[in-house]
C-alpha cells in the first residue's frame, strides 16, 4: 500500500497559541501517527501546517480523516487539509501510482542487466500514448524508482 502525505493547516485563522498546536502534534504522535511538523514559533500564525503520513490511496478519504483527527487532537474545529502527495519507496505500487497520476494504466516488469543494474519496463496501452508526453512520464518514473525506466506501448 502507498503512503500518502496529507498536509493539514491546523489553524488557518491563526488565533490559537503555538503551544496548543504543539500539544496536538504530540497527541497525534503518541497515538502512533507519523507527523512532520515545523517549529510553530517560527511560522506565520496562518501557515502552521503539519503533514501526516498515512497508508492508503484515496486522498479525499485520507484528507477528510486527517482534518477530523487533527480537530480532535486540537480540541477545536478549523483544521483544513491541503495538497496530498505520495511517498515513493520505489515499489511497483509507487510506479503505478505515478502512471495513474498521468491518467494512464500500465504493467511493470523488473529485470537486471549483467552489471546487476535494475531495469524497469513500463508497458502502457497504445491508446494511452497520446494522453501524456512520454518524456514527462519517463522523468517522473525514473525519479520515483531511481532505476532505468523503459516505456513501451503495446
Amino acid at each position, binding site marked *: 500500500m502507498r503512503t500518502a502525505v496529507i498536509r493539514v493547516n491546523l489553524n488557518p485563522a491563526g488565533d490559537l497559541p503555538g503551544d496548543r498546536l504543539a500539544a496536538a502534534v504530540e497527541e497525534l504522535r503518541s497515538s502512533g501517527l507519523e507527523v512532520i511538523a515545523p517549529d510553530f514559533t517560527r511560522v506565520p500564525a496562518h501557515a502552521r501546517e503539519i503533514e501526516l503520513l498515512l497508508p492508503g490511496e484515496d486522498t479525499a478519504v485520507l484528507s477528510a480523516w486527517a482534518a477530523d483527527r487533527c480537530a480532535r487532537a486540537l480540541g477545536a474545529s478549523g483544521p483544513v487539509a491541503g495538497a496530498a502527495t505520495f511517498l*515513493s519507496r520505489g515499489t511497483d505500487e509507487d510506479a503505478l501510482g505515478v502512471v495513474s497520476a498521468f491518467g494512464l494504466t500500465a504493467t511493470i516488469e523488473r529485470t537486471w542487466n549483467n552489471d546487476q543494474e535494475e531495469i524497469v519496463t513500463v508497458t502502457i496501452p497504445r491508446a494511452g500514448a497520446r494522453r501524456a508526453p512520454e518524456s514527462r512520464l519517463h522523468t*517522473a518514473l525514473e525519479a*520515483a524508482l531511481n532505476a532505468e525506466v523503459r516505456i513501451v506501448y503495446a
Partner: protein
Amino acid sequence: MVCTEDEIPPGTHKVFPIGRHGVGVYNVNGAFYAIANYCPHEGGPLCTGRVHGRSVVSDDAPGGASVIRDGEFVYCPWHQWGFEIATGTTAVKPEWSIRTYPVKVLDHKVIVTA
C-alpha cells in the same frame, strides 16, 4: 552503511552511488533522510542544488513573504523546483514523487535501506 554520523553534520549532505542516479543523504536538524539524486522535472542532479526553506505569504514580513522550515527543502539547480527532503514530494506537482529511502543510525553508522 554509507558513512559515519559525523561525516554529515546538521545542515549538510553527501551523495552516494546508490541506484541509477545516486542518493543524497541529508542531515536535517539531526534527522537523516535519503532522496534520489534526480529531479522529476527534466532529470537534473537534484542533490547538487541548494538547501533552503519554502516561502509562504506573510503580510507582516517585508516583501509580503516569509521563508519557513529553513533547511528542509532541496532545490534543483537546473530550474529551481523545490522538494521536501523528508518526503521527496512537492505540493505544486502531486504527481511527482522522488524515491526516498529509510535511514537508520546505529552505533554512529548511517545506514540507508532499500
